[in-house]
């Protein structure tokens, strides 16, 4: 290695290191703060929301943002701010439950495929290939078409479709860890395959899945609100951001605030989880490309 390349590498590393360190803290802290903020809003919505999110108040309909209604009111006179706050309960729940099931199913199946190998692996990975051949949202919609619209259908469809990313991620890591020294050591001590898999291998490859699940929350919230926007997820009058945007679309010429604020809420929540994912990725030393 030439000395110049070395010195340049050091220089770059120093710069990147300084930057990276700064960004880890910033990403992680800001992301965690935003997510925590939304969690508080969701928990406290009934206490802190100034108005009822559901009941109509026609005399005050379609009022622009003002002192009484900071985000304005919709066509039924409902306070948009209150509805956004209550919407956080639904959308945050969608993000968390919607990630939990695919996470558990995918991690389990992926580790079994990677550890068992042979036909189990081949069969599961072929299934993954087939599921991945379908566009994510289209397959979700097709399953919801059969189950009927609603939040429960959304969770089931997500569990059926979303596990493949986790399965692939975990399988790849299990394949690497399977041949590592500490697993050979555990095997030589006579531990059974299940113990080795769940006590020794899985804990070591879960970090990647956790980081991915944070960015997956963004995807899940986006698809959940998209499906609700299409009218196939959460049903009105429940306050959910996608539903609110769908309802407000009829009034875009007169009342832009009905659609604008719920959308900003989605963007802001997604931004928080993206930052959290980036921050965690750097904390765990997994730079995502």
């Amino acid at each position, binding site marked *: 290695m*030439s*000395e110049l390349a*070395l*010195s340049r590498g050091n220089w770059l590393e120093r710069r990147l290191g300084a930057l990276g360190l700064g960004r880890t803290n910033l990403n992680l802290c800001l992301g965690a703060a935003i997510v925590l903020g939304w969690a508080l809003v969701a928990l406290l919505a009934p206490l802190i929301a100034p108005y009822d999110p559901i009941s109509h108040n026609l005399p005050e309909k379609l009022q622009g943002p003002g002192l009484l209604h900071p985000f304005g009111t919709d066509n039924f006179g409902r306070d948009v701010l209150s509805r956004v706050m209550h919407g956080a309960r639904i959308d945050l729940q969608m993000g968390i439950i919607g990630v939990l099931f695919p996470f558990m199913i995918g991690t389990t199946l992926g580790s079994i495929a990677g550890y068992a190998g042979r036909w189990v692996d081949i069969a599961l990975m072929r299934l993954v290939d087939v599921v991945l051949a379908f566009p994510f949202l289209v397959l979700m919609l097709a399953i919801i078409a059969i189950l009927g619209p609603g939040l429960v259908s959304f969770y089931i469809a997500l569990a059926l479709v979303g596990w493949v990313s986790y399965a692939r991620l975990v399988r790849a890591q299990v394949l690497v860890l399977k041949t590592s020294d500490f697993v050979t050591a555990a095997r030589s001590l006579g531990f059974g395959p299940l113990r080795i898999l769940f006590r020794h291998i899985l804990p070591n490859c879960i970090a990647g899945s956790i980081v991915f699940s944070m960015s997956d929350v963004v995807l899940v919230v986006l698809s959940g609100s998209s499906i609700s926007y299409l009218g196939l997820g959460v049903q009105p009058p429940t306050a959910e951001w996608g539903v609110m945007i769908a309802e407000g679309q009829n009034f875009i010429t007169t009342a832009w605030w009905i659609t604008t604020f719920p959308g900003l809420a989605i963007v802001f929540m997604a931004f928080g989880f993206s930052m959290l994912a980036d921050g965690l990725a750097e904390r765990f030393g997994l730079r995502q490309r």
Partner: protein
Amino acid sequence: MSLLTVRNLSIAAGARTLVEEVDLDLAEGEVLGLVGESGSGKTITCRALMRLLPPGDLQIATGSIDLRGRDLAQASEADMRKVRGVEIGMIFQNPNSHLDPVMRIGDQIAESVRYHEEASPRDARDRAIELLRQVGIPDPARRISAYPHEFSGGMRQRAMIAVALACRPKILIADEPTTALDVTVQAQVLRLLLDLRDRLGLAILLVTHNLGVVAQTCDSLAVMYAGRVMERGPKRAVLRAPAHPYTEALLKCQPGSADPAELLPAIPGQPPAPGAFPSGCRFHPRCPRAASVCTQERPVLRPIRDQRAAACHFAMVS
């Protein structure tokens, strides 16, 4: 008559000085070897001659680089672009990474011709074929449309030489051109460089850590250690009777200089990290002849005999 004259060149990274007071002279048709261990500053020195130091990080602190009456150390970036490739060509240690992997070999040669001479695509292509023939690649008319990965390591180094010579520069800077190659191919590439020197009157600055390469190819050499030139002079004289203890130690470490059955001697200790150099003579912690004067006073590079110079308090002046 010197083509390229370097005087008092120092290169700094912030407050640290990595290369100090380097003098070099390169004459037409001469092969000058710049020898040193890694970290001695030889690569930075030749990047500095091309003004290709990483911007914002390393910079020329003092000194002049005289090319036919112009000081390259002070030249503008626009002027330097007319020097690089046109008056001074450069080849690198690793031909695999220094050729663009997705551009055809012929295009990479023709590119400089088209850029600098605004030649037509046809003329540039003809030049590319001619250059590939000159560097000894068989069937050049067909091989110009090959990609770098389709060449062997030695062929790639030949192709890189053709790229560097595309605009017929008079000076070639070769940064460890054979280090990444197989031993058998190394000799071929060195022979090619000498052959090009003879045919084109090329002056070559050959950077290497291998004194064997110097012995085979160079007319004169400069030995660098810890950012300073320790000794310079005609090859034969220096290699026969080194005036600096460092040169002497380097020579003893070369395979073939000692009994083949014995382990090669090594210079005790480690070379200092760039920028963290010891006081006095930078070689004194590893020098068998070090005296108290060596720890305090830095020896200057002074002429000794037969156009030779050495930076050692104990070098004999005739």
